[in-house]
């Protein structure tokens, strides 16, 4: 490794205790919160059943995150997920920020290194290898498909169909199979995916990039999301589609079906008013940086030590925000309250009024750190929160207390801090069992246990590079 920065044990600051959190509240006032804790605390997760414990998913996607994200959601709710990777592993395993090998995670048994992006979505999954470019590999896939409830793939459009293992073929072998293709723009249509298309292809194509970032007048440009956001949203859409198909199969039809989900479709779905607006009068949605086209005050603006979000669209909160600022800078509050142009809620929305509003607000905020501004605003019940970096995020008392982050002490990769499952629930909460597995680690268990291969047979396949 490069420089020797000390790495803090996490948490660096102890998590508050329940006594501290509910201090001063009457029994009646905190009764509901404590009932929630009783039912939702993740410490009890492993005593509870799993919603999808009898579902098996084959995740044959690679290079993108969309398929792995989707199968992670199933894994968290108890499904058995087997990642089917090309021999040598999913190429995504090898990616690490700026190529820095020192930031990879090493498996204690084999010494194999894996990057954080892949590892974050390897949770609770088994790992086998299979070469689908070889006919023998495809025959084996057909055998695996007979045992699966769900199969996810993201090969170039039509590749699996050409190989005889597409939906049309596998649904004959296993009519109960839910077959899902995932990708950037689609497996059919004029803009269907080309081999090698990755996020942010979908981000650029769906209007997200154009709409994110500061307007030209503020010196801004279109901006991509800092992570493979379309993959994650599209992968969640895929999960909903697959889950729908499973519900229908087991309740009504007894049959699987063909599911398709893309990063572009997922984000188009949630680009709120872009499409309706254009349809009504041809408006092109402009980007507005960290301000909002539809609500004022609802923005992130600079302050003394960074940036801070302040929100309050109606009068009650508007006046409280200015009252907060007015305690330190009376002329700031006075300026806004006296301006007849800002009297009506709708009057605060036009661009020049937002310039006036936020410039005046920043006149106060520039002298407050995020923490100071937050404290003052929250005293007036105004929603506000500082833009936080991940070291700060990792130490938020609220997140630590609720287990948004957790350390998994993994057999292979040691202690890894992760974003925990977001599926809190009374009866069947989500959970993470292990971090991940090295390439091909579960070949023996799956090929011998599930498919009945002999040791000799499996060795021969390995020799030929099929597995």
């Amino acid at each position, binding site marked *: 490794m490069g420089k020797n920065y000390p790495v803090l044990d996490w948490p660096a600051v102890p998590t508050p205790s329940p006594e501290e959190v509910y201090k001063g509240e009457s029994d009646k006032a905190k009764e509901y919160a404590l009932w929630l804790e009783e039912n939702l605390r993740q410490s009890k997760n492993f005593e509870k059943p799993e919603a999808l414990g009898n579902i098996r998913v084959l995740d044959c996607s690679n290079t993108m995150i969309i398929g792995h994200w989707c199968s992670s959601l199933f894994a968290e709710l108890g499904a058995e997920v087997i990642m089917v990777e090309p021999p040598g592993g999913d190429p995504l395993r090898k990616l690490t920020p700026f190529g820095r090998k020192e930031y990879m995670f090493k498996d204690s048994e084999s010494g194999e290194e894996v990057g954080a992006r892949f590892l974050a979505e390897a949770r609770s999954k088994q790992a086998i290898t299979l070469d689908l470019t070889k006919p023998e590999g495809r025959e084996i896939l057909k055998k695996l498909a007979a045992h699966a409830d769900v199969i996810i793939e993201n090969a170039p459009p039509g590749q699996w169909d050409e190989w005889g293992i597409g939906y049309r073929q596998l649904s004959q072998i296993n009519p109960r199979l839910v077959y899902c293709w995932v990708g950037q723009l689609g497996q059919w249509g004029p803009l269907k995916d080309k081999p090698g298309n990755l996020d942010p292809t979908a981000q650029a194509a769906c209007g997200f990039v154009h709409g994110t970032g500061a307007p030209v007048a503020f010196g801004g440009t279109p901006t991509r999301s800092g992570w493979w956001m379309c993959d994650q949203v599209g992968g969640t859409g895929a999960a909903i589609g697959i889950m729908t198909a499973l519900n229908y199969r087991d309740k009504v039809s007894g049959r699987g079906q063909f599911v398709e989900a893309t990063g572009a479709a997922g984000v188009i779905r949630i680009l709120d008013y872009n499409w309706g607006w254009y349809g009504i009068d*041809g408006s*092109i949605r402009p980007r507005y940086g960290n301000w909002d086209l539809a609500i004022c005050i609802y923005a992130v603006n600079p302050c003394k030590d960074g940036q801070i979000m302040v929100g309050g669209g109606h009068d009650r909160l508007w006046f409280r925000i200015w009252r907060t600022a007015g305690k330190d800078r009376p*002329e700031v509050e006075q300026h806004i309250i006296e301006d007849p142009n800002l009297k009506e809620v709708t009057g605060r929305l036009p661009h*020049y009024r937002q310039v006036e509003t*936020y410039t*005046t607000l*920043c*006149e106060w905020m520039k002298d407050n750190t995020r923490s100071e501004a937050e404290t003052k605003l929250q005293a007036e019940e105004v929603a506000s929160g500082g833009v936080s970096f991940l070291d700060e995020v990792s130490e938020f008392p609220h997140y630590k207390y609720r287990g948004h982050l957790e350390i998994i002490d993994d057999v292979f990769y040691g202690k890894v801090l992760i974003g925990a499952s977001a599926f809190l629930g009374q009866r069947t909460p989500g959970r993470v069992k292990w971090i991940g597995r090295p390439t091909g680690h579960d070949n023996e268990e799956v090929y011998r246990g599930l498919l009945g291969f002999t040791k000799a047979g499996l060795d021969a396949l390995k020799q030929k590079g099929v597995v």
Partner: protein
Amino acid sequence: MAEISYSHCSLLLECAKCQVVNYMDPFTFWNFSGKIKCAGCDTIYAVAYTNGQRVKAPEPAQGPHDKLPGFAQTKDYKTQYTDTAKVSPPLYARPPDNKHGPTYKNVRGNLVSAGKLAATDLVGSRPRFILEGKPYQPAK
């Protein structure tokens, strides 16, 4: 209305000559060193900000300006400066002369109920002109 002075403010720049309040929007001007032009009287000022704080008071300077303020108005709020020769341009979703108004036909020329209606225009809670498929006629 009390007379407020903004001469001590960072991001609100009160022109020494004409007292117009120029708003230096926090994104363009947060870390800015250069010349701006007062929207009220075209006086050029050299300004410098770091993290929204004035590094020194605005000094009269010679043009041309580097940037225009985000917006400006007089202290009594009566005169607004929105000319793009004076302030930075606003956002446009459509051409500037295509002002928003009641819309009863969409961008494809088909019927849409995107304009004000009167009670007589409704059948229950539905616009009659949509139900009947006829272009909207406001009641006389």
